């Protein structure tokens, strides 16, 4: 029998892990773009907030932040609904996990994008403005496509770390790959086998994303000649 009959459970857990990783990637990506914009802006308050955000988040373990944000998110919401005398709203664990992970890894993406913004030659942006492009159009047509080439190695790195960090969400109550493997292992009293399966699935996921990221890297560096020896 496929995985001693626990195949569907493991598959469901894998889906949760992948969904969670992708949705937090999207969130972290957006936060990173905004954060990099804030860090490079001429507004001192924005710069200060973004600087504090990246320093604090990157100095504290993600697990500690996860527990802190996850628990306090619900508590704050409860306080809010209580003061408005509404019924208690329970946050969906999946949503809370994605928000938490996205918020944490947004700090790492901010630093990646900041470096990439700075790597795009100034003349490119000046030329775009000289063409009469608006700020948004300059970003979409000129800055973003060129920036991605410099950002991709950092993004790949962050993605791999984030994918592995999703293993921690089982601690805050999500039935992800780790949790389902543990449950299957406990139920069949063959933990060794099921945790190995879990590890192999993670290995497959990282290998697969490696291929995709390498393809993207080639795609975004099209037309770039590297120094050959």
């Amino acid at each position, binding site marked *: 029998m496929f995985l001693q009959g626990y195949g569907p459970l493991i598959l469901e857990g894998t889906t949760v892990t992948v969904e969670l990783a992708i949705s937090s990637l999207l969130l972290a990506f957006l936060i990173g773009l905004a954060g990099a914009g804030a860090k490079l802006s001429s507004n001192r308050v924005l710069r200060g907030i973004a600087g504090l955000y990246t320093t604090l988040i990157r*100095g504290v373990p993600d697990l*500690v932040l996860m*527990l802190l944000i996850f*628990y306090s998110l619900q508590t704050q919401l409860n306080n809010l609904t209580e003061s408005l005398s509404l019924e208690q709203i329970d946050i969906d664990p999946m949503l809370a996990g994605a928000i938490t992970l996205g918020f944490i890894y947004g700090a790492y993406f901010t630093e990646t994008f900041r470096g990439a913004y700075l790597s795009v030659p100034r003349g490119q942006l000046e030329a775009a403005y000289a063409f009469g492009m608006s700020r948004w159009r300059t970003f979409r047509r000129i800055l973003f496509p060129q920036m991605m080439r410099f950002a991709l190695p950092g993004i790949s790195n962050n993605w791999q770390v984030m994918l*592995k960090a999703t293993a921690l969400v089982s601690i805050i109550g999500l039935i992800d790959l780790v949790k389902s493997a543990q449950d299957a292992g406990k139920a069949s009293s063959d933990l060794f086998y099921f945790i190995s399966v879990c*590890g192999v699935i993670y290995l497959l996921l990282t290998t697969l994303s490696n291929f995709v990221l390498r393809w993207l890297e080639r795609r975004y560096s099209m037309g770039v000649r590297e120094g050959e020896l």
Partner: protein
Amino acid sequence: MIEIIEQYWKAYLWTDGFHWTGLAMTTWLLTLSIAFGFVLSVPLAVARVSQNRLVSGAVWLYTYVFRGTPLFVQLLFVYTGLYSLQVVRDTEVLNAFFREGFYCTVLTFTLNTCAYTTEIFAGAIRATPYGEIEAARAFGMSRLTMLRRVVLPSALRRALPAYSNEVILMLHATSVAFAATVPDLLKIARDVNAATYNTTLAFGTAGLLYLCLSFLLIWLFRMAENRWLAYLAPRKH
């Protein structure tokens, strides 16, 4: 709030009255795993850049597996997975070792950080300027002498910035130790949270202590870079 701090500050910092806990435990875990990991990773890095495909392939496989799976899963594998095997329980030495959460944690952390460190050092060794190796050969140095006197001193220095990153990440990674019931900083924070329901204070205090330790490590590595990488710094006139 004051009462909570008064009651638990000792547990957060070094002891709950019986064992080492909190910050002291976290630092001890970090020190042990970083020290063992460093000692193992230097020969492994040399093997990783070896011309022999079999040797470098074996090391590659090791680092690939350990860098491709989450540390949390590795810890579960060692602590709960291996111990569920009948062979391990029946062998007295293995039984005594894998029953202890602390030993399992140190073993897992060492293997994990060693995999990352090996790749960092191997990258630095590969980036050694070829002229240096040629010069060492021209001096008639044997392979071992060359490694000891020329390649490793310069490669380890150049790896320092990436290595400091790995140590900071390892500090953050030690927070999963509670999964093997080791009373580290996060375990104390979770206990305080469970006992007082004051989430922000319980985890905030732990976060602050982790932050301080991170800054201390960053400062230490900056000192080390100033000392050992001075010759690579931009020239000041």
